[in-house]
Every structure is written in structure tokens, then in C-alpha cells.
């Protein structure tokens, strides 16, 4: 656990007072109207929403998952974050269309774009989903903070969850979005500087950039392996490494190692320490065997994570790693098209084949496709809903456009800064086999290597990261509850004072809801909900674009895509593979399959139902001026003299 000195506590308390004070000071502006409480009066210059985009999308779990993908996949892992690049296109397409509509939220936009009963249903559905999603994200991020505090201080999970989100709620309750966006700017500056400082320390701890590159050239090859839990106790295992292209066996275990069900933690830890020396090439024993770990002296526990180590073979870029439990009669693949050596980690384009391995070209092309074309739609990415609030708070269409582009550019630059530190972390601890350990790498670097006084400051930086995210989602969830539920359905004639009061009440309810979500989020639930988020993005990705660019796509088509996606995603990801009807597919193939299957439902529904009311479409078109296939609407608008 981490121990704070007096200086650490001093900086932590001072920074908390500064961050909360910054937001709370805007109380007088936030209380004036609904527009002030949720959109800061739509008067912000581009750099404020931009910093809010950056600060919001930097949360306590962000360095965890970035560390996880960079440790496992090297610099090519950064492409996992490239989906954020949808903002590069959106800044000049959907951002501008949305800003011109003047809708507070995406739910309200649905009733501007569509009409009739379908539009009302969509508004209610999107608003309800967003209230739920914001509470869930708050719980998720809050539990990440709880886990970090548990690791650092030994606190129970709920303490880290409740305390720090509540601190953020102070200035959100007082000043609404004014408090959020001002504090985000300040917290964004603090967070960026902390990220830079800690990452520099991480690189220094590993010996500097050139040392990292040099050591990657000398380290032996590794492959993560979770030993199957159903492996027979006492079974003898063999490993072999073969060339992926020619199937030539490069090396195999000379003598078998042993599997065991009787877990011994001390021996497990001691084994890991030995593995570190094999990877770093600092082991003392001389051996002619290609495979360094596991050897015949080793016992591997079933259900546990290990790092297999072998000497890198010259000229062989991709290898297959297999194991056998029947003395080599049959071989089971551990990883196909696996990268040999460690140099590949500094190559962001280290492909492992067209469709095979951990970084296939097909996956990369899918990511580019999703990232670049997604910008033509609204809601193609879960981040759209927070960006939408920032877009509407900008003082002009141009400011909205610049803010989205600049905030996202900063997000992508930030990831690269983290990546440098994680490469340094890999050099120091190359043997970690469990993602639960190596994904904490950036935090470990900070708390282990920073001087006294800076540890408290680092925690203040982590708090800045946390508060900027929770404050956004508290206020955003409250906006949907107030504007799209209370104001639209319950009390359309509510005064501005009443709306601010309801906004504050909604803020409090969202806060409490997030605590409930946070306490019930466990490993399995998180995985289930991550599946739901990913599949939501997949199945309705194309409809989210069609609703922007195609006049004929109506509310019933869009609604049917949501409903169909819920069912189809279960089929494709769980049910059909379980019954062997389709194989278990990689995530990018699931994406393409769901795109096609969903279209087979919402396209017929669209054509079998009437188009939206033409006058309604003309009104929307004249206000928002969308791009794409709007010919009939445009002609009608000209006919009516509106263009």
C-alpha cells in the first residue's frame, strides 16, 4: 500500500479545494435558467468545450484499459482507441448539423428529425436509455476509483466509489454545466500535466527511450497463456513453437512439465520472478532448448495465467504456439500467428496476417471504417451523447466544430503519451501474465517512482481525471431527466426556476443511482454490460448514420433497428455459437454480420411504413441543412420558398 507524507496530504487537500472551488464559483450563472444549468447559456468559445471533451474522456479507468492494450499489443494497441477519430469527420458533418438544430439533447433531436408517434417513442426511449447509461457509466468509473483506492490504501470498494463522486456532485449541484465545463478546463490542464510528468518518469525508470528500444531487441519472445481449468491434475505437458507460414517446428519441450490443481501461491510468485529473468535474458542457467519457460522443473497450476518464454528465432516473424497433454500425439493451439521477439511492440502497424493473430488487417480496416464513417452519423459511438452537450454549449456552429476536433485530437495525443510509459513499464516488468496486473501499469509507474510530495500530487491528478468525468455524466443524465422527461412529458409550462430545481433534484437522483450501480457491478456484470455496449454500437451503427443522411429513413425504421439489434446481438454472440450453428466469431466479424442482419429488418420496415411528414422534414431541413440524400425534401423546401 502507499503511504502519504505530510507534503502529499497538503497538495491533495489544496488541489481538491481548488478543483471544487473552481466549479462552485459559477453558482450564480448556473442557477439562472435551464439553458445555463445544462448548456452554460450556449455562449462558450471553442476551447472550453474542447477541454471538456478531453477531460471527460479521461477517466480513472482510461489509463487502465490503455495500459492493458499497449502492454499486450504494443503500439498497435493504440488503434483500439482510434474509434475516437470519428470526431475528425463529425466535426465537419454531424456536429454542425446537430448544432444548427438547437436541440438540447440527442433525444430532443429525434423529435425534430422524425414526427408523430414514432418520434415521441424514440425521444422517450433515448432519454430513458441515456439516464440509465449515465448512471451505469458513473458506477463503472466510480468502482474503478474504488478499486484504485483499495489497491493504494486498502479501503473498501464503496468508500472510493462514494466519496469522490460526491465531491464532484457538490459543484454540479451548485453550478450545473457552468461548473462542469469550467472545472473541466482546469482539471484538464492538471490531468494533462500529470500524465506527461508520470509518463516521463516511466520512461526514465526504464532507462530512457533508446534503452527501451535496445532492450526490446534483446528480450526473448513471450506469449500469454491461461492454463485451461479442466486440465487433468498431474498431467504432463509439452510445448512447441512452429513457423506460421511453413509449419516447420522451430523447437519443442525436450522433457514435459507438470499440471497441478493444488495451487501454491508462494511457488506461483517465485515462478513469475524466474520468468522475468528469462524474458530479460538475464537468467543464469545455460540451455540449448528453444523454450525457456516452462521447463521440466516447472509446475503449472490450472486456471492460472502464465507467460510462455522462448528464444526469438532469427528471420521468423510469426509463429504458432501449441501445447500437448498426450506426449505430442495431438497439439492444441494457444496462439496462432503470434509475433516473434519483442521488436514488434514499437511498430504500430505490426500486422499478424489478413485474418489471423492478435492484429489482423481485417480488424484494422474495420476499425478505420467505423472511425471514419461513423462521423457522418449521430450516436454511432457512445461518446456522441456527451459530445452533443458540448456541441450545443458552443457559441456558434464554427466553435462547436473546432471544439470537437480539438478535444479529440488531444485525446489521441494523450494516448500516445501513456503508451510511452507503458512500453517502459513492459521493459521493467515483462513477465506479467494477468491483465489485472499489467493494466495497472501506468498507476504503478507513478506511485512507485515519483518523489515524495509528488505522490499526493499524482493522486490529486487522478482525482482531476475522475471529477471531470463524473461531473459530466451527473449533469448529462440530469439533463435528459429534466428536459426530455419532466419538461417534455410532465410539465411543459414549467418556469426556468422550476426547471433548475428539477435539474438539481435529478442530479441528486442520478448520483444515488450511480452508487447503486457501482455496488452491484462485478466482473461478470461488467462483461455482460460491455457486451451490451459494444453490440449496441454494432447493430445500430448504420441506422445512426442513415437517420442523418437519408430523408426516407423514418422513425419506425430506426426504432425497429434498436429492437432487432437487442435480439440479433444475443443470437450472434451467444446463442448460435453455443448450438454450433455459427462458430464463435472475432469481434470485428460480429460487427459486419450484425450490420447485415439488422439491415434485413429495418430496411423493409422503413419501406413498408410511410415517410415522415414532408412539412416536418422541410422544417428540419431548413434549420439543420443536413448533407446526404435529401433531394425530395430540398425540392419541396425550394417550392415553398424557404430556400
Amino acid at each position, binding site marked *: *500500500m*502507499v503511504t502519504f507524507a505530510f*507534503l502529499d496530504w497538503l*497538495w491533495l487537500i*489544496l*488541489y481538491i479545494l*481548488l478543483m471544487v*472551488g*473552481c466549479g462552485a*464559483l*459559477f453558482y*450564480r*450563472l448556473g442557477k439562472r435558467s435551464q439553458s445555463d444549468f445544462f448548456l452554460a*447559456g450556449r*455562449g462558450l468559445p471553442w476551447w472550453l468545450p474542447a477541454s471538456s471533451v478531453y477531460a471527460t474522456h479521461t477517466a480513472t479507468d482510461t489509463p487502465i484499459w490503455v495500459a492493458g492494450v499497449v502492454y499486450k499489443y504494443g503500439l498497435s494497441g493504440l488503434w483500439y482507441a482510434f474509434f475516437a477519430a470519428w470526431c475528425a469527420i463529425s466535426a465537419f458533418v454531424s456536429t454542425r448539423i446537430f448544432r444548427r438544430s438547437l436541440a438540447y439533447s440527442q433525444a430532443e433531436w429525434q423529435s425534430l428529425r422524425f414526427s408523430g408517434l414514432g418520434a415521441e417513442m424514440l425521444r422517450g426511449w433515448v432519454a430513458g436509455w441515456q439516464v440509465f447509461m449515465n448512471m451505469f457509466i458513473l458506477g463503472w468509473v466510480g468502482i474503478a476509483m474504488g478499486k484504485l483506492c483499495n*489497491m493504494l490504501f486498502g479501503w473498501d470498494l464503496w468508500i472510493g466509489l462514494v466519496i469522490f463522486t460526491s465531491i464532484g456532485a457538490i459543484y454540479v449541484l451548485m453550478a450545473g454545466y*457552468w461548473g462542469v465545463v*469550467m472545472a473541466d*478546463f*482546469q482539471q484538464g*490542464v*492538471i490531468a494533462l*500535466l*500529470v500524465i506527461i*510528468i508520470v509518463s516521463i*518518469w516511466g520512461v*526514465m*525508470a526504464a532507462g530512457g527511450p533508446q534503452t527501451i528500444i535496445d532492450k526490446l531487441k534483446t528480450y526473448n519472445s513471450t506469449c500469454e497463456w491461461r492454463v485451461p481449468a479442466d486440465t487433468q491434475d498431474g498431467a504432463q505437458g509439452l510445448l512447441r513453437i512452429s513457423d506460421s507460414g511453413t509449419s516447420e517446428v522451430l523447437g519443442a519441450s525436450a522433457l514435459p512439465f507438470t499440471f497441478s490443481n493444488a495451487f501454491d501461491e508462494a511457488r506461483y*510468485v517465485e515462478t*513469475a520472478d524466474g520468468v522475468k529473468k528469462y524474458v530479460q535474458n538475464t537468467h543464469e542457467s545455460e540451455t540449448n532448448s528453444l523454450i525457456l519457460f516452462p521447463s521440466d522443473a516447472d509446475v503449472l497450476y490450472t486456471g492460472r495465467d502464465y507467460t510462455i518464454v522462448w528464444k526469438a528465432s532469427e528471420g521468423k516473424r510469426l509463429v504458432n504456439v501449441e501445447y500437448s497433454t498426450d506426449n505430442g500425439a495431438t497439439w492444441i493451439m494457444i496462439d496462432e500467428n503470434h509475433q516473434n521477439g519483442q521488436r514488434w511492440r514499437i511498430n504500430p502497424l505490426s500486422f499478424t496476417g489478413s485474418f489471423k493473430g492478435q492484429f489482423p488487417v481485417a480488424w484494422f480496416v474495420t476499425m478505420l471504417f467505423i472511425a471514419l464513417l461513423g462521423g457522418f452519423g449521430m450516436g454511432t459511438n457512445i461518446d456522441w451523447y456527451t459530445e452533443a452537450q458540448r456541441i450545443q454549449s458552443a457559441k456558434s456552429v464554427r466553435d462547436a466544430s473546432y471544439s470537437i476536433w480539438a478535444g479529440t485530437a488531444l485525446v489521441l495525443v494523450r494516448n500516445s503519451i501513456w503508451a510511452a510509459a507503458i512500453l517502459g513499464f513492459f521493459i521493467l*516488468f515483462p513477465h*506479467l501474465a494477468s491483465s489485472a*496486473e499489467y493494466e*495497472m501499469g501506468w498507476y*504503478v509507474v507513478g*506511485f*512507485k*517512482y*515519483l*518523489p*515524495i*510530495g*509528488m*505522490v*499526493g*500530487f499524482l493522486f*490529486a491528478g487522478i482525482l482531476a481525471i475522475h471529477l471531470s468525468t463524473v461531473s459530466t455524466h451527473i449533469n448529462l443524465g440530469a439533463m435528459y431527466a429534466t428536459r426530455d422527461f419532466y419538461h417534455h412529458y410532465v410539465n411543459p409550462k414549467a418556469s426556468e426556476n422550476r426547471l433548475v430545481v428539477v435539474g438539481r433534484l435529478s442530479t441528486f437522483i442520478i448520483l444515488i443511482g450511480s452508487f447503486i450501480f457501482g455496488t452491484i457491478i462485478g466482473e461478470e456484470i461488467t462483461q455482460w454490460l460491455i457486451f451490451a455496449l459494444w453490440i449496441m454500437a454494432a447493430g445500430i451503427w448504420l441506422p445512426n448514420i442513415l437517420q442523418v443522411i437519408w430523408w426516407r429513413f423514418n422513425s419506425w425504421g430506426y426504432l425497429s433497428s434498436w429492437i432487432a439489434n437487442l435480439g440479433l446481438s444475443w443470437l450472434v454472440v451467444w446463442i448460435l455459437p453455443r448450438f454450433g450453428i455459427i462458430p464463435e466469431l472475432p469481434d470485428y466479424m460480429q460487427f459486419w454480420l450484425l450490420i447485415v442482419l439488422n439491415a434485413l429488418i429495418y430496411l423493409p420496415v422503413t419501406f413498408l411504413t410511410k415517410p415522415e411528414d414532408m412539412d416536418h422534414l422541410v422544417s428540419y431541413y431548413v434549420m439543420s441543412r443536413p448533407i446526404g440524400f435529401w433531394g425530395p425534401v430540398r425540392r419541396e423546401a425550394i417550392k415553398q420558398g424557404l430556400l
Partner: protein
Amino acid sequence: MMSFILANTRIGSPVLGIILPALIFCISFLLTVYLLRHFMKQNKDH
């Protein structure tokens, strides 16, 4: 495993633990004052 990794191996002079946080604190404080003055004035004018 994590507790072993977290054992301190600090790099850099302890005086950095005063200078760097103080510098960033001052920058953040000045930014806050600027934001407050700018937007309070702007909204007063309106």
C-alpha cells in the same frame, strides 16, 4: 505481486515534490481566476 511492484523506488530529487506541484497549482489557480473574471464580466455585460 502488485504489492511487490508498488514498493517504492523513487527517482528524482525530493525538491521536485515541492516545485512541480506548486508550479502547476499556481497555473491552475491563475486559470481559475481568469475564467471567473472573463465570464462574470461577459455575462454582466449581457
